């Protein structure tokens, strides 16, 4: 049962206390209200799905979590503390990593270099040391390379590590993006439609990776997804958005039977 200390799921995974909380978030772009007074939370170690019809405001919500958009109203709490408006790179340093709906890889670099960029928040050696490529800079480079290689192994992309990402097919690009996000050893991983454009086998692979990440590293995951099967199978809890409002929040079985959710997806006329 849900207590503030967390609980153990049916299959033995430990879900912790609340790690991220969005309270009364309202986000406007000029005259358009993308998100209206939404409140939900994410627990440590869980897989939280955000679903809803197109245009519901899901990506915008993810952008609020990663600091790219600043909501006009509402507050974000990270690990119990109110988070002041931060620049996106400062949010990344807190341990939040993400993937993007339309792939945002660095097309001028190889797979390995892209994954290594995931470690940039951890690489601290100074300019002089880097210029001389001795001592701290070289050691740091090799240490980080080892971590990245482990992620590359984990996601089974070793054979393409020196390939320029611009040459890769869509499915592999998505995996590289996941590798980049994992390389930073995040506490919270945000996935924006990780299965988009994939066939059944690719979706199975990606689902396996997501579950493994959560299982082996205990990473908290929030994902936006359209494939209902994936959502029901993977997630511990689901929040449903429609037209910028929250219309459902609970376990997959709760959501499945929620009339408002069914209406939103089936398009019942609103009188």
């Amino acid at each position, binding site marked *: 049962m849900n207590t503030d200390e967390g609980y153990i799921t049916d299959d033995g995974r430990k879900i912790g206390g609340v790690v991220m909380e969005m309270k009364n978030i309202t986000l406007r772009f000029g005259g358009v209200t993308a998100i209206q007074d939404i409140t939900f939370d994410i627990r440590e170690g869980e897989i939280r799905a955000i679903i809803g019809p197109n245009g519901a405001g899901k990506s915008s919500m993810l952008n609020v979590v990663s600091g790219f958009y600043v909501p006009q109203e509402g507050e974000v709490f990270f690990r119990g503390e109110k988070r002041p408006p931060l620049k996106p*790179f400062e949010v990344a340093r807190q341990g939040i990593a993400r993937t*993007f709906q339309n792939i945002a890889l*660095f097309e*001028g670099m190889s797979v390995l270099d892209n994954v290594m960029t995931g470690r940039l928040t951890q690489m601290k050696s100074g*300019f002089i040391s880097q210029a001389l*490529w001795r001592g701290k800079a070289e050691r740091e480079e090799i240490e980080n390379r*080892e971590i990245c290689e482990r992620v590359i192994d984990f996601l089974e992309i070793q054979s393409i590590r020196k390939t320029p990402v611009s040459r890769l097919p869509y499915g592999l690009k998505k995996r590289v993006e996941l590798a980049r996000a994992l390389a930073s050893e995040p506490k919270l991983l945000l996935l924006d439609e990780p299965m988009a454009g994939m066939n059944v086998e690719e979706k199975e692979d990606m689902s396996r990776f997501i579950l493994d990440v959560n299982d082996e590293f205990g990473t908290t995951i929030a994902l936006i997804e359209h494939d209902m099967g994936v959502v029901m199978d993977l997630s511990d809890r689901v929040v449903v958005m429609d037209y910028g409002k929250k219309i459902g929040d609970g376990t997959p079985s709760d959501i499945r039977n929620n009339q408002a959710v069914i209406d939103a997806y089936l398009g019942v006329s609103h009188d």
Partner: protein
Amino acid sequence: MFYREAGDFSTTYREDSQTFPIKFDRYRYYAVLVFAFAVVPFIINDYWLNAIFLPFLIYSIAAIGLNILTGYCGQVSLGTGGFMAVGAYAVYKLMTAFPDINIIVHVILAGGVTALVGVIFGLPSLRIKGFYLAVATLAAQFFLVWLFNRVPWFYNYSASGQITSPEREFLGVTLTGATSEPWAVYLLCLVFATVSALIARNLTRGAMGRRWMAIRDMDIAAEIIGVNPLSAKLSAFAISSFFVGVSGALFFSVYLGAVEVGEVFGINKSFLVLFMIIIGGLGSIFGSFAGAAFLVLLPVLLKNVLVGGFGWPTDLAAHLEFMIVGGLIVVFLIAEPHGIAQLWRVAKEKLRLWPFPH
């Protein structure tokens, strides 16, 4: 047959991240270095020095600088001429104010001054992008040239407005002015060029280089994954300007000896260095050298062939040069945007397989 990578593999990450992983490439690189350092000084004369080697080495340093800013970090700058001027005038003021200090120290300090100026003019890059930024750098270019022309303090109140390099020597050998020794000047610039290349190579293959390239490829994504855009862009401006400033300082003090800022460091200089990195290859240290070599050798070649060989008037040869350079820029941008460096890479790959087709 002789150029193969079979049997040549790395067993540590350290080996894998070196500059020349293939043994043949490494040995060829050492051979070039040996030739440059140990053979050329004995056979060099004034003509070769001033027509080819000095401009090649000095422009290579500027090209490395601009390549870091534009090729690696994606911030287009049309202000290279102005920044070279900063280096030149900084070294002039330092040399005349502190005549006892070594010229090498002065050149490095001039680079530092230019780095600071570069950071200041780089601040707008946080708000302005793409070729809006390129046009903004024009502000730097025109303002700096005007500054060195109109504010007499910079040229020590001389009547002509020109600056001339005072005579300096190092370890008993004259380096500047008419009595300088060709081999000594050559070695000085060669050392600067080599050290610049090494530093640039180390910076671009490490974390710094990755930050720059991330900003270049997709600055929003870069920021979201944790790159601080302010420090990445400003560091690119700073380091790039340092190299450009060193280049300008050497250009003035040991190459030209006397400079009138409007003629030497005008916007044409900015375009020249930009062309060098486009033709040579954006985002490549080797490309910086290749482009510099190309654009230094081309006019010399044209002059020797057309004027010396065919008896053309020099201005006609100059017009043809414009047409060739302009045409080549377009050709390279269409056919090989990664420049000579990419052509070289592809050639080497083919050579590694030769005589097999694939």
